[in-house]
Structures are given as structure tokens and as C-alpha cells.
């Protein structure tokens, strides 16, 4: 605890650096996964291929990906863009299936009714299907968020600054409190972000917690 207080400025910087890597990746995973999922659901024969295919990306070992990606992207290994792309790939691996299932789960009767009252297909997607898939999309997003926050730390091995650096530094220099702080703070950050997502979900989807059918 004392170690944390003594190193507060550095820890704050690392926390911000951690978020700067994680948040864009989480957002990008979500924004890319939803259209892929939508398209996969529309082209039925391809759905399983797309969903399982992206899911398999999660099996790619993270460290080699962090190292190989710069070659493909033409960036440096320590470039944050490289890390964000890698994290986005892992995020997609989780989010595409979640989003495909979420969009699929929208009640057929509600879809039919909204077509019948005169929603155009695009309006129906944005004002009916997307909001109704919201709770399931949020569930997927929460998994991506936790997974991304924890994966960011791996990039510290390459020398990219994040809360993972507390772990790698502590390991090199045998500072136990630094290692402990790295682990605990990563977990706390994941938890806080999760709570934030839940709170935002409640705010924008008040209907989801109402009654039962």
C-alpha cells in the first residue's frame, strides 16, 4: 500500500496508458463486430463459418501476434496502434458471436409487427432490432471489456507501457509490491469498467429490467 502511495504519479500514468490501449480496442471490437454479425445473419449459409472463424482468432497466442502484427501493419513493435489492433482482433473473436446471437434473438413477432406498421428495413434495424439486442450485446461487451483489460498487460513484455509494466518491472527488479499492485490494479480496473458498462446499460435501457412477459 505504501509502495502504491509512493509511486502514485507513475501508477496514474500507467493506468491512463492502460485505458488508452484498452478502450479504443473495446470500442473498435464492438463497432466492427455488429456489422459483421448483421451480415453473417443475413447470409445464412455463411453465418457459422464467419462466427466460428472469428471465434478461432481467440486461439491465436497473444504474444506472437503482438510481434507479427507490426510486420503486417508496417508499424513498430512498441507502437500503440499495433497493440490496439491486436486487442481488437481478440475482441472481435469474442464479440462477433455474441453480436450475431444477440441480433438473432430479437423476437420474430416484434420484427414482423414493425415491418407491418411501416418501418423500412434500415429503420427497423436501428430503432427496433439493435435496441432489443442491446442487453445481449451488452453482455458480450462486458466479456470483451474484461478480457481486453487483462490482455493489455501482455504487451508490457514488449515494452509498451501499461499496468502490466508494474508486473514486468517488479519481476525484473524483484519488487514484490509492484508485482502485486500490477495484478490488483488490473483487476480493479476491469471491475470498474464493468460496473460502468452495467450502469450505462441501465441508463439507456430502462425497459430491460421491467416486468416479465
Amino acid at each position, binding site marked *: 500500500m505504501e509502495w502504491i502511495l509512493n509511486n502514485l504519479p507513475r501508477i496514474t500514468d500507467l493506468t491512463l496508458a492502460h485505458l488508452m490501449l484498452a478502450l479504443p480496442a473495446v470500442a473498435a471490437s464492438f463497432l466492427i463486430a455488429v456489422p459483421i454479425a448483421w451480415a453473417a445473419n443475413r447470409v445464412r449459409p455463411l453465418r457459422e463459418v464467419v462466427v466460428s472463424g472469428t471465434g478461432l482468432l481467440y486461439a491465436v497466442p497473444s504474444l506472437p501476434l503482438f510481434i507479427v502484427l507490426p510486420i503486417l501493419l508496417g508499424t513498430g513493435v512498441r507502437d500503440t496502434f499495433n497493440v490496439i489492433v491486436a486487442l481488437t482482433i481478440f475482441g472481435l473473436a469474442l464479440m462477433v458471436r455474441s453480436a450475431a446471437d444477440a441480433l438473432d434473438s430479437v*423476437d420474430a*413477432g*416484434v420484427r*414482423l*409487427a*414493425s*415491418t*407491418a*406498421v*411501416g*418501418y*423500412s428495413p434500415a*429503420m427497423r434495424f436501428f430503432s*427496433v432490432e439493435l*435496441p*432489443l439486442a*442491446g442487453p445481449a450485446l451488452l453482455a458480450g461487451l462486458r466479456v470483451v471489456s474484461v478480457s481486453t483489460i487483462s490482455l493489455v498487460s501482455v504487451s508490457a513484455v514488449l515494452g509498451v507501457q501499461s499496468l502490466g509494466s508494474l508486473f514486468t518491472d517488479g519481476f525484473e527488479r524483484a519488487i514484490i509490491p509492484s508485482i502485486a499492485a500490477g495484478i490488483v490494479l488490473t483487476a480493479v480496473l476491469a471491475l470498474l469498467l464493468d460496473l460502468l458498462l452495467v450502469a450505462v446499460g441501465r441508463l439507456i*435501457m430502462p*425497459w*430491460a429490467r*421491467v*416486468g*416479465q*412477459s
Partner: protein
Amino acid sequence: MAIEFRNVTKTYPDGTVAVDNFSLHVPSHTCTVLLGSSGCGKSTLLRMVNRMVDPTSGAVLIDDDDVATTEPVALRRRIGYVMQDSGLLPHRRVVDNIATVPRLNGASKAEAHRRANELMEIVGLDAAMARRYPRQLSGGQQQRVGVARGLAGDPNILLMDEPFGAVDPLVRVELQRELQRIQTELRKTIIFVTHDIDEALTLGDQIVVLKKGGEVAQIGKPQEIVEAPANDFVAQFLGLDSARRSLNAAPRDGGGWLVSDGRGRPLGVVDTVPDQHTDTD
């Protein structure tokens, strides 16, 4: 607005012939009931009117205009549609659900809400329900909201697909009565789909009894169908052959008459019965 089905056939991609060469004239300002068992093509016929289903051959005309020449989304916004399980949007409050069509038609939010409140009154919904979500309503109340939404765009045509099929019998009777009351005021051209004979006899100005594939077994006013079923199928469907509709009256101890059906099931009590139809000995 009169509706005309002209030799319509619908073959679904899997080969199912849901409707085979069906023709019907639906007079304006009246309620036409499509009556038939599940799977006989009622919903398919209904959905041809607002182009949720396009016929494989034949045409549907509204006031002599082929609906195929109208853009489907625009067409649907001027035709009311009410379905079973109401199909309400669970993420929109009651007032917003009812306001859907006016909003789609470009009304301002305030204007659409004013219209929605008006309709809540017409269909007998307490104003306190406006801010609730559909899930917070009973089945009967949800159906009222469904009817209100169907009427909100002030359509000339109302399509109703077993709208009261999922509510309990008491509520169903109440909803039917409300619909009759609304219809005497608004006089829409209604096509009402049901498999419930009593509902058809209650609501229909004209009843179309359907067999599988949308084959017409009989078209007529309720009393015509009860008095003179065109064939065994209709008689059977109405329960005329099973003595359900042959009535007897027997005097009660306390005065009046007990009416029962051919199987002896008591149906109700009447004060007087015409002599020639009694069964007193």
C-alpha cells in the same frame, strides 16, 4: 376503401401452396371475417393486402389500384395491422408504441403523443398506462394498445390477424364488444382473421369460411351461414352437425325457460319462448 382479391395464389419457396386461386370482394366500411382452421392460408391472404406477402400470381386491389404498384413501406403506413400477442415494441412506452405510425408519417413527437392519448381513450385504456412498458400490462390491455396502434395512423383499412386469440374468454368478449363499438363510430374496412366461430359470428358483416389452401367453402352474412350452411364442411365447422347449435328450452321452477344445446349443455335462461319452438313435454 374496397379490397379485391383477384385470383391470388401463393406458393412459398419451399413449395407449400398456401393459397390457391382465391378471389374475394371486401366491401368498404364493413368487417369481413376470414374464418378457418390453422394453416388454411388466412394470414397469407391478410398479408397480401399490405404486401408483407406478394402473391405468386393474381393481384390484390385497393379501390381498383393494384397494391403491387405501391411502395410497400408507404402502403403499410396507411393500413392498420393488429396481430396476436400484439407485437408491441417492448422497449417503447405504451404512448410511444401507439404513436409509432404517426411518427413514421412525419408527425412531431408532441402531435403524435396527442394522437396516442386520444386513441388510448377510444380503446378504453386508462391514461395512467401511457408511461408504462408493454410488459407491465395485462394481455388484454396489450391487445388494446395493439388496436390503438393499428388505428393511430387513421387508416381506412384495418387488418387484424387473430388479434384476440391469446387472451382469456372473458377479456376476449370484452375486446370484441369494444371493437364493435369502435367500428360503429369509425367504419373502417376491416379484414379480421380468426378460427373462432363465435368471434366470426359476433364481428362479421360478411364471413368467409375457408378450407385448406384458401379454398372458399362459403361466403355470407352470419345468419345466412348459420341458417343455410352451403355444405357439410361449413356445417361441421360451425358445429351444426354436433348439435352444438340446436337449441332446446325447458320451463324452470321459478318461471322462465332454461335453454340448452343438443347435448343438454345449459346455455342460459330466457323469460319467454315462442310456443311453436318449445320442447315442454
